[in-house]
């Protein structure tokens, strides 16, 4: 039982970290695109 809870926690933990990485990636892509198109330039 303990082992299966550990497996579930591993799956969830890993999933959480990867999802966070994807979210950061999305932010990064948005940032790069905005920079390239000049939307975020300080006037």
């Amino acid at each position, binding site marked *: 039982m303990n082992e299966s809870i550990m*497996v*579930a926690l*591993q799956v*969830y933990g890993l*999933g959480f970290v990867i*999802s966070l990485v994807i*979210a950061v990636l*999305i*932010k990064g892509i948005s940032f790069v*695109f905005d920079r390239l198109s000049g939307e975020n330039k300080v006037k």
Partner: protein
Amino acid sequence: MNIMNLFQGVATLFYQEPLISGARIVLIFLGILLVYLGKKGTLEPLVMIPMGFGMSAVNAGVLFLSATTTGTIFMDPMVSDTNGLMNILQIDWLQPIYTFTFSNGLIACIVFMGIGVISDVGSVLRFPFTSMLIAMFAELGTVATFPIAKLFGLTNGEAAAVSVIGTADGPMVLYTSLMLAKDLFVPITIVAYLYLSLTYGGYPFLVRLLIPKHLREIVVKSTRNENISSAKKLAFAVVANTILCLLFPVAAPLFVSFFLGVAIRESGIVKYIKLIEEVFLYGATFFLGLMLGVLCEASTILNPKILILLVLGMIALLLSGIGGIIGGYVVYLISGKNFNPTIGIAGVSCVPTTAKVAQKEVHLVNKYCFILQYAMGANICGVITSAILTGIYVTLIPML
């Protein structure tokens, strides 16, 4: 001439074991009921009508294959040796579809590609952290069901496959059970699709039970309504797909299918979009329903574990729904109460059903409340997190 030899579907009812014969009769009527409920709209008609039709037909059309054996000429999912398979491919009319599209997961990937084509990732790019957070909370059932399934005596592979019902994503369940629990993939997939058809009817009650009316009517005040360009969405699809394929090569077919669908949508290739959305997606859904029904032949589906799967499937979907709503509450608190917790249910990745449920529920209490763009963000992130968790299970479980 014995008249019973002329009507072998009836004759086999008397020849087979009483348990199998009884199950055949029950399944014939269950198939007819599914067609009726599909037509009525209680269950998803796109899957349930071909499924119910196939279920009643396969259980009625049993014949004598030899003097001592019975079977059908629909298909044989249990055939394993190459010679036998080559023979069956030339006899059973659905065997080519089963062998070349179903048992290797292709049909699940085609459905997933179709989901990609109909998914606008703009909402995900607009609210990435909120959407991902809700989606991960809505995976509660996908992970919490695993130890519960182990308690019921399932193997690691079976427990993982049944837990994936919590993703509320049919193709994902099909893919995982094919990879990890081949012996149980028929009952697991059938249980999953039956329950998924019921989410549209069941989740609204969960929302009303767990979220008070004054919170359901909250209008989210957004300061960010920027347009997300197609190029940005395309870049996201390409980069996310490459990274996820690098991390989980075993689940690469699923990632590729989904993100390729997104990429085609954002590339604006109208002919491909029409091909995938109108031909591939509906064609695959039709055959998926029909194959699931035909796989419900009494002798194939009668498994002592079916009752356990029915219970676990319900637990998985219930926990995911509760998890999603908890996620909605968490974002509500983090955002200084400028968030409608109902959006949480959309984290359960049944695209676009749960997003529609969320919008419908808030609309019932506040006609001026539109949360669909937030709900779709959580919904599509739900598909991504489901694919990630499936990738982790499919990679991790064989290592245990």
